């Protein structure tokens, strides 16, 4: 297996909230660790407020982390402040945003959007820009490229705009691409095209982080999945295995909730409890109030991530108890 290109180690981000009289801390991201590998797509899934977009923003250095490290290509980039360093890092780690309507300048042509990063990052000389732009448009399936290069965003459909946004991210030959819900604002019939494009682009050796709430699309494009709940990773592993036999009760609930066109839907149990579990969290599992499997220990001891099966990690006292990890770590004992 190829070495990871980007590693996130115990990354945390806390936001202050609650005002002056009752100050509190929202643990938006809590000790999140994972690695992205060239040529693989890693899905980061969870409900809104689970912290998945915050992770994306931390990696891009759009937000400063409270704690932890981001290691890119063997170098710690967490606290790099010099403009030159940040610029170099940002050219290697690119983002595709959710809203293809808001992320393009309506007054500029497609060519402008693609040529700008080429110039800023000194990737193509004045003479090569034109051919580079057209090559990029071809990569993302906007053909004939000449026609699309001179179009304005309003002349394009949502799917075409999202392809322009992807081409722009690719312009600087990034090693890592973070796609934050890239299809959720697109029409159903054109989502498949964008998902297929991501699958094809992975072959270029790019490491993808696909941030989504849609597990079915994660299964379609991704190799691995991280499931977040209330700021913590609660389960991670190969996407097929996780979706076929989820370990964490939250992952199970998520999967049971997805409409899959089957009329005989099994009712899910409705329980109270929200992502507010991440505000000044007390010791104990953050999912405990919604969990059908909760036992006594879940209320006062925070579960740790445990490798329950090879390659399958979960944070649950019941389905991934710690003892197993101990056995795993000390087989002789």
């Amino acid at each position, binding site marked *: 297996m190829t070495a990871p290109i980007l590693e996130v180690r115990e990354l945390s981000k806390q936001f202050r909230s609650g005002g002056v009289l009752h100050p509190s801390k929202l643990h938006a991201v809590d000790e999140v660790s994972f690695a992205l590998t060239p040529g693989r797509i890693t899905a980061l899934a969870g409900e809104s407020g689970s912290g998945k977009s915050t992770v994306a923003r931390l990696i891009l250095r759009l937000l400063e982390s409270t704690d932890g490290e981001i290691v890119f290509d063997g170098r710690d980039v967490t606290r790099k402040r010099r403009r030159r360093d940040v610029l170099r890092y940002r050219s290697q780690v690119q983002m595709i945003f959710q809203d293809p309507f808001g992320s393009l300048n309506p007054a500029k042509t497609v060519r402008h959007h693609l040529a700008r990063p080429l110039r800023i990052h000194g990737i193509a000389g004045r003479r090569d820009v034109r051919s580079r732009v057209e090559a990029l448009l071809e990569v993302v399936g906007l053909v004939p490229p000449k026609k699309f290069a001179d179009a304005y965003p309003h002349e394009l459909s949502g799917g075409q705009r999202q392809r322009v946004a992807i081409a722009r991210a690719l312009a600087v030959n990034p090693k890592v691409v973070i796609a934050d819900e890239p299809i959720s604002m697109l029409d159903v*019939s054109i989502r498949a095209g964008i998902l297929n494009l991501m699958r094809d682009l992975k072959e270029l050796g790019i490491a993808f982080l696909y941030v989504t709430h849609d597990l079915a699309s994660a299964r379609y494009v991704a190799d691995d999945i991280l499931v977040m709940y209330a700021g913590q990773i609660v389960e991670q592993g190969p996407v097929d295995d996780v979706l076929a036999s989820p370990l964490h009760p939250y992952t199970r609930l998520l999967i049971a909730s997805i409409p899959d066109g089957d009329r005989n839907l099994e009712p899910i149990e409705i329980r109270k409890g929200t992502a507010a579990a991440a505000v000044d969290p007390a010791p104990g599992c953050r999912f405990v109030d919604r969990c059908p499997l909760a036992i006594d220990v879940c209320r006062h001891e925070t579960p740790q991530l445990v490798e329950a099966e090879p390659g399958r990690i979960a944070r649950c006292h019941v389905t991934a108890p710690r003892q197993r990890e101990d056995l795993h770590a000390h087989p002789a004992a």
Partner: protein
Amino acid sequence: MTLALDVLPHVPEARATPVVALENLVVDYVSRTRTTRAVDGVSLSIGAGEIVGLAGESGCGKSTLGNAIMQVLRPPAQISSGRVLFDGKDVVGRSRGDLRRYRWRNVSMVFQSAMNALNPVMRVGDQFVDMMRAHERVSKKEALVRAGELLELVGIDRRRLRSYPHQLSGGMRQRVVIGMALALRPELVIMDEPTTALDVVVQREILQQVRELQAELGFAVLFITHDLSLLLEIANRIAIMYAGEIVEEAPAASLRVDPRHPYTVGLLGSFPPLHGPIERLTGIPGSPPDLSAPPSGCRFHPRCPHCTGEDVALHARQVGERPLLRVVSGDHRVACHRETA
């Protein structure tokens, strides 16, 4: 739930006349320079106690259709022709007083964004009271009692009557709006993307609740969404809309196993499966048309995989003639030239 029965008695037993029937409905958005036909000759009926799903992509006219039934279209939108029958009587062109009695009491609506449907500076309870007193002669006290019962019906503690909308989660707000839609015992509730902005777990909770309430109280539902897999679970019958027209209409079960229109097939092929083998998704090439200049003939022909020109006679009809919605089997109707070739 027994308490609910006092507040919301069963609607009258199933009748022969549908609750709402649309006959050749045409809705235009008129501006000085151009007219955009958002709904073009739609006929659809919704029977008592039935859940009818209406699926389509953004801009296909599905929300306009819902607004037309609710009679809340505002200029530049106008009903240019056709009828909206409630209980057999046309409601198009009725007086304001008539429409005030019709809206919320006969047909009510749940909008996509509960945050926009609720007044942010009014307590939830006051909004219930306001709405009820606008349509019925009830005392404030009585209205508040009923509001509390409605809240509990949709699974919210009645003490939340004193909350402001921002103090509720997104799912709770959407439940409040559903409670308000049920307040005056309507026979039809139009739900326009009621769960689109919500997380998938909350969406499932709300759908479950809608199904329970519907089974208990017997109102009909027109469920508008872009998510076909969701409709396959909740609806009895599904209509697929494309570019202002209904292109296929069938019981949910037959639509799932035997979709006939290439657009329906394409939509079903756009959702990656959660189980089973993964095949490359096909999606649908191209994008939905601009309704101010719709394609000639069959509106789907520029995106249709079957419009190849191989069969010259068929091709001529595909590009030159509008297909009509025809029965293909039982209560399965399709508007496609290939079905009549």
